[in-house]
């Protein structure tokens, strides 16, 4: 095995073994590019959309689970399933409800312009716009699915309240309908999924939380670096309170804090390994145990003496590293091909 190939192989193995929920469910993606108004925006929204579409397919989503509704079908007939009219968007959500099963993950991502300072919050589509309440009503058909709804448009903050629901992840590019300046959030969000940029914990997958955090951080950097006044503040809501958070916590957060659910949902679908050897199963169990102990230790960080904490952390990390190496060897022995 070439050294360079070892890491992705291990990632795949470990991710397969640890990501229990995704393994038992399918993931579906609907990307909608709204009306650009100008050639530059049309091109930009299309580019962002294709990045997410391609990233999802690369991450294992079957192509039939990925639908892209674009402003102009002629821009990319291969990828764009249909025009992003309001009727088509609603029809596609209904189709998603038919196609998916309870327990599946459904991602809906909107790139475009929005408005919300006057009148109900809306996402601008060719023809009639859809307002937040219409999306909320359409999503009722997806009950029992884990829905990730991302509105990366300007003035999208108004979508948070109507769409927020327990068990649902809602991400908006702005904190209110009043933030109506051009939003760059979508671009960074697309970047987070496309490649490894957003994969903060290096587990080979990008969660909704990781993508949000990546985009949020890059937005902050962009405005700071260019000495500009920030005109967009993205929010994530996954505890159903409709308030959203600009700095959601992670997997260690309680369920009453935004971020926990989003940290567990990935835009991707792992290929199910056919079988696991007994040795690999044992290693996987050991690894999960170590990871649990690491998580527990991290929760105690504030109460532990720094040296004690580091010493215990080191012990666990060494243990984890050694198990990972054994897992890697087991994978090689099992004949898993180099990627």
């Amino acid at each position, binding site marked *: 095995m070439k050294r360079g190939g070892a890491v992705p192989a291990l990632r795949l193995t470990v991710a397969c073994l640890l990501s229990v929920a995704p393994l038992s469910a399918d993931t579906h993606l609907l990307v909608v590019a709204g009306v650009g108004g100008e050639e530059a925006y049309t091109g930009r929204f299309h580019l962002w959309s294709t990045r997410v579409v391609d990233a999802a397919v690369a991450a294992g989503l079957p192509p039939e689970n990925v639908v892209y509704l674009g402003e102009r079908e002629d821009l990319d007939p291969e990828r764009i399933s249909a025009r992003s009219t309001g009727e088509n968007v609603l029809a596609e959500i209904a189709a998603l409800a038919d196609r998916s099963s309870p327990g599946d993950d459904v991602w809906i991502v909107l790139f475009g312009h929005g408005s919300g300072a006057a009148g109900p919050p809306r996402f601008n589509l060719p023809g009639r716009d859809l307002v937040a309440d219409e999306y909320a009503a359409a999503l009722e058909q997806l009950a029992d699915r884990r829905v990730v709804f991302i509105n990366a448009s300007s003035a999208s903050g108004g979508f948070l309240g109507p769409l927020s629901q327990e068990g649902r992840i809602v991400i908006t590019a702005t904190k209110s309908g009043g933030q109506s300046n051009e939003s760059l959030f979508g671009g960074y969000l697309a970047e987070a999924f496309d490649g490894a940029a957003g994969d*903060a914990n*290096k*587990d080979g997958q990008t969660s909704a939380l990781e993508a949000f*955090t990546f985009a949020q951080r890059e937005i902050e950097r962009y405005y700071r670096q260019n000495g500009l006044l920030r005109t967009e503040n993205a929010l994530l809501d996954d505890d159903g309170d409709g308030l959203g958070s600009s700095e959601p916590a992670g997997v260690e957060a309680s369920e009453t804090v935004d971020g926990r659910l989003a940290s567990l949902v990935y835009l991707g679908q792992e290929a199910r390994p056919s079988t696991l050897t007994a040795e690999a199963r044992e290693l996987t169990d050991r690894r999960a145990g170590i990871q649990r102990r690491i998580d527990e230790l991290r929760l105690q960080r504030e109460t532990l003496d720094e040296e004690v904490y580091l010493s215990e*952390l080191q012990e666990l990390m060494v243990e984890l*590293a050694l198990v990972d190496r054994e897992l890697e060897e087991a994978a090689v022995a099992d004949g898993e091909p180099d990627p």
Partner: protein
Amino acid sequence: MRRGALIGTAASALALAAVWAVGAWPAEAQEAAALEEIESMLRTGRYEAVISRLEAPSGGLTAAEPRALRLLVEALIATGRYNEAVAAFEGVDAAETGLGVLRGRVALLAGDRAGARQAFESARVARGGDALVASFELARLAWDEGAIGEATTGFYAMIDAYNRGVADTAEELVAVAHACQLLGRDDPELFKDALRAYDEAVALDPSWPVPRIRLGELFLEKYDSSQARTSIADVLRSNPRHPEALLAMARTMRFDGDPRAVETLDAALEVNPNLIAARVFRARLRLASERFGEAREEVEKAVQADPESLTARTVLAAVEFLEGRDEEFARLRDGILADSPRYADLFNELADASVENRLYPQARDFAAEAVRLDPKSWRGYGLLGLNQLRLGDIEAGKANLERAFAGDPYNVWIKNTLDLVDTFVQYRTIESEHFEFQIHDSEAELLAPYMVELAEEAWAVLVERYRFEPPAPIRVEVYPSHADFSVRTVGLAGLGALGVCFGPVLALDSPSARQVGHFNWGSTLWHELAHTFTLLVTDAKIPRWLTEGLSVFEERRARPGWGDDVQIPFVTSLRDGELLGIAELNDGFMRPKFPNQIGLSYYQASLICDWIEENYGFDAILVMLAGYREGKSTEEVFQEAMALSLSSFDERFFGYLRERFGTAMAALGDAPGPGGEAAEDEGGSGEGGPSRAPRRNLFAGQAPDLSALEKAARENPDDFRIQMTYGNALFAEERYAEAEAPLLRGRDLFPEFVGPGNAYTLLAEIYRELERDEEAIEALDRLLQHNETAWDQHLALADLLAAAGRSEEEAAILERTLYISPFDADVHRRLAESASAGGRFDIAVRERAALVSLDPADRADALYRLALAERDAGRPERARRTVLRALEVAPGYDPAQELLLDLVGKRPAGSGRQPEAEGP
């Protein structure tokens, strides 16, 4: 007033008496109409016409005699003819005619306090129309004499009168308002009542200017210059010659840093040369400009006019103090306190004057004296607190500011400063050998290593050069919000400066406070630290021009490109003889006559330092500093250091400038001077140094006529502007090969010009387009010898050097970009890689740590690479901790796991895997 009495006794004194003594009397209606007209003349500032009309033999006014007398006296007061105003009352029973208060005020203006008291007392007893105001004036006299208890009783009587509804004229309401204003020190709520009463007075008599002026003064007292300006401007709209309004406006302008303050004050004194408050204010301005002799001259005129004036004598005491005449100072101080034992403003004024001359410890001590004398001197507590903060005594400063704010919650400066001090908990303290940095938590990790490194380097350089070591630590406050820096400096937002030095305390904008390319924090820090040395080595007796000049001079020696660069207005000012001689150079900083004169003065002062060093060696500068410390004048100091009189110096220095910039002067043709078009070429300026932000490209026009430009360029090969305009136009059209020649010509005509549209930037672009990289490198290198903020050009040069394989030079340029903005991750990454490749592992660690502090999206990888750099730098323990931090983020991150196993010696036997080598 009885007509007979006037006729019988005042005929010899005033033509007015003669007017009333002769001729036929017009009917009452005609008289009233005439007086209305005169009143209107008075209220529109036609004072001479009023006087002339009322003094004219044919004027004949009878029925409205008291009114006529009042109008005449008011016109005489407005024009400063106080003695004539006194004479006008001769033989008149002022109290009985309701003019007792006016009589008293005239006496006061003429310096006759006893007469004033008598007049006010008579008016009060006479129970005429002005009795209530007379009571106020009596209380006011008591206040001035330090009889605070008696005065307070009198002021509360005014409030009582208001509440009983007997204060119902505009003048009475002004008296009530003024009483509330003075009582505000005991009960700040009364400031609101003062505003209300002034507003009512305005409503009652909208054309009477006094309440609007007093209202403006009250706003200014509370640092609300915007409202002050509005109120006073209302008066000046109808009467542009009202001396008190002009004075109030001058004060407001001075507060706002508006250079028109001086001309506005001059206008006030032109109307009324005996307006003592204006003389005192002018003297204060002279003091702030370090023109002590002129301040003395000015304030002596005021003292002569009113030998008992507390304000004038106070400023005179300040002059004596600042000139080091201790005995005279003590005599004046004691005299003032003998007359008014609780006159805390004596010390408050001394504290203010000390601040203006950068004597912060003395200012603190004077303010302490003020609050000792009067425990209700909220101004004193404010000054004490602010100066304690300036000297780094944060806790005591905060406590005194809180006292000041409790007593006067309407003082915006104090409030803003307290709000700022409350945010200090968000700042992290970073200590180094000679410094204590206060940097906001959000950027301390990133900025501190660079700031500490630069500050310590500057310390070593400056200690050696000035042969002096200031007491350490120096406190350096770094503000991520320019508004906070501004509050720290002047109490309000909006200061144009970048940094400020209080001696042992520096405050400056963080690079995050400014747009990238508008600010170089490194040169600013160096500049301010140089002030610390020059201020402390001279006990703050160094003139402003020299401390600023030396700071820029030191910047220039620190790094290529740092320090001011020459701008077109400097050369045109030199050409037009508008640069100030050494004797007036301070005015260029303190009393600029046009907006960019401050910037020109900084540059000029730095060139003076260059010139002295070049011709007499740096020791001459040390001799000058020693001389100033001993209290010597600039004349004496120049004589001692260089055996030059000031005029000889000017002659030689300007000769040098004309030679140095001779080609540029000739090449600028008829370019307008600093008051003209080129004024827009300058950035804003402020106390801590002029902004070096990019300016407008003067050579870029819309839709230029290229053929006409080509012809002009051909016919005027020595005209810089034409060559540059033609070059810029060709460049804009992407006719690069053709643009080269005029741009090269422009460069040669004015090689030091690096403003927008400069030849170097465009030539570099052209050479890059034409793949003449070496020439592009040379052009950018020459540009950056003079320009410290050109972010894009720094990066472009670094790219070209990288492409040319000149990695050490690339790294040097990238290092310089960090002083413009340390927030660019790519710069840090390149520096880290270059440092690792070159075996400069400490630099690699610094850069990798910077990348971590920039909160990268891929935090695990950033930490891992920092750990690698630490390992390479021989710090395995640090590396172990850092890699654990990486694994906290990404427990399964394989390279980090490898490094950890390697560092703790747990790599499985036989494992051929190694942690990655540090690199991209």
